[in-house]
């Protein structure tokens, strides 16, 4: 079953044609990795799925993007509803200047949840899912800024999970972290795909190889090749993919 499906998506930043007709589908409860050199459009494409590109002036998007069967650019779609359904983790950990507890509860609160007990349970569960609970359970009231970078990133993952999205977008989630923290995040991705559809943008090809089921290679705004991760890394069909994964450009 497909969780995210796009048909002939074009995106323009003013005159610049950043995405050139991308058609692909991402399967439910699988990890799909986007790879490609800087500026190839992979992050831009990812940001279409929760309409974060709406925040940039002068962006024009054409084509269809369906999430769990719903066209998310239709006029009757509420962007905040969509973003509850499609969570996102960013490159740089960006916890709010609030306590650890309040960071995770934030998404629930802004979406109108008031039930204290429910919030407490959900915060605990989300922190457990993000493999952070044991490290922070005794200091939930402490500032999130007291955590290490890797812990902060897992807190941001917990924060995204708390509102129970069905799709989780990760934009280079480990690129600002040390190797140990990176390993933890990767392990986490493995566990999370049981319950979530994950789309991850990464610059690190080994990481794509380790965490993903399918890999898409982007180049100059085009989707060059999309296949099982194993196939992409062992037997790519396109010469450009071959060149990229063997390090001839990037």
């Amino acid at each position, binding site marked *: 079953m497909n969780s995210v499906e796009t048909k002939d998506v074009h995106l323009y930043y003013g005159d610049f044609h950043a995405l050139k007709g991308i058609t692909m589908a991402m399967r439910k409860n699988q990890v799909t990795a986007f790879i490609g050199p800087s500026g190839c459009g992979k992050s831009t494409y990812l940001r279409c799925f929760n309409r974060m590109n709406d925040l940039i002036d002068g962006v024009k998007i054409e084509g269809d993007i369906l999430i769990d069967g719903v066209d998310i650019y239709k006029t009757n779609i509420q962007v*905040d509803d969509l973003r*509850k359904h499609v969570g996102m983790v960013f490159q740089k950990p*960006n916890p*709010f200047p609030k306590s650890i507890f309040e960071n995770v509860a934030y*998404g629930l609160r*802004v979406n109108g949840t008031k039930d204290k007990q429910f919030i407490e349970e959900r915060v605990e569960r989300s922190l457990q899912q993000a493999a952070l609970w044991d490290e922070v359970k005794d200091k939930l009231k402490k500032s999130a800024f007291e955590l290490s970078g890797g812990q902060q990133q897992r807190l941001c993952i917990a924060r995204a999970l708390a509102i129970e999205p069905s799709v989780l977008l990760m934009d280079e989630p480990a690129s600002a972290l040390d190797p140990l923290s990176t390993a933890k995040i990767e392990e986490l991705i493995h566990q999370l795909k049981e319950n979530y559809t994950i789309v991850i943008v990464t610059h690190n090809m080994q990481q794509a190889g380790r965490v993903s089921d399918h890999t898409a290679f982007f180049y100059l705004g085009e989707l060059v090749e999309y296949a099982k991760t194993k196939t992409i890394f062992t037997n790519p069909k396109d010469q450009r993919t071959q060149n990229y994964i063997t390090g001839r450009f990037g």
Partner: protein
Amino acid sequence: MAFGTPSPSHKSKKLSQSIAFFVFRLLSFSVVAILLVILGFILVQGISVISWEFLTQMPREGMTEGGILPAIVGTLWLVVGSMLFAFPIGVLSGIYINEYAKDSWLKRFVKLMTNNLAGVPSIVFGLFGMTLFVNQLGFGDSILAGSLTLGLLALPVVIRTTEEALKSIDNSFRVGSLALGATKWQTTSRVVLPMAFPNIITGLILSIGRVSGETAPILFTVAAYFLPKLPNSIFDQVMALPYHLYVISTSGTNIEASRAMAYGTAFVLIVIVLLVNLLANWLRRYYGKKVKMN
């Protein structure tokens, strides 16, 4: 030349660095020194008249005796009144300009006008306030007219400080909040504003300092030459410290006799401004800590 032995060029480099740092240090200390000299001068000249009586009594004997209570009270009224006007409008405008307005010619125009407003001489504000508030709107010479005029003067400062405080908040916090399904207003009120609050507060309080020392805007809108009673409503006239200082230094009944009173008044005015600035500092630290904890 072997590594480890100082070369002649090294010596001259070190010398020029020492000279440069000496000059910088001298200049920055001289700024502090000027401030201390001013404060010291006023303190020495004015301290003799500072007493409980000076702070709590009406002026007497053609303002050569008694105290400056009505001027202190008047200045407090004007500060509070002008801030009630300038804070909400200024802060909300700053939020609008930085968080909501799209980058367009209109936004640039509003910003340009705000900057221009900040550059308008304060006497012009005074004349404007007299025309609009005192005459056209019929408030007469009153706390209301004076407060509105002072508020207008403080407005660009408040807008600019709010704007700058918001601008310094990294965009990743906004994006992170929006990505969780928060609306723009939730993002602004729950994440951005609390983070910017310490800096906004500082700006606001510094503008209080500015307003409490202004003379020209209150000259034609509220300030009384001599009015030995406290105001009952916002439609009353009041005395104010800066204007009182001007009066007893230049056009009092007996300038020589009130010389010490003038320094005393200046001293009180400066102490009020300094206290307000200390409060600003304390609030910024207090909220700076609190924001991180919550």
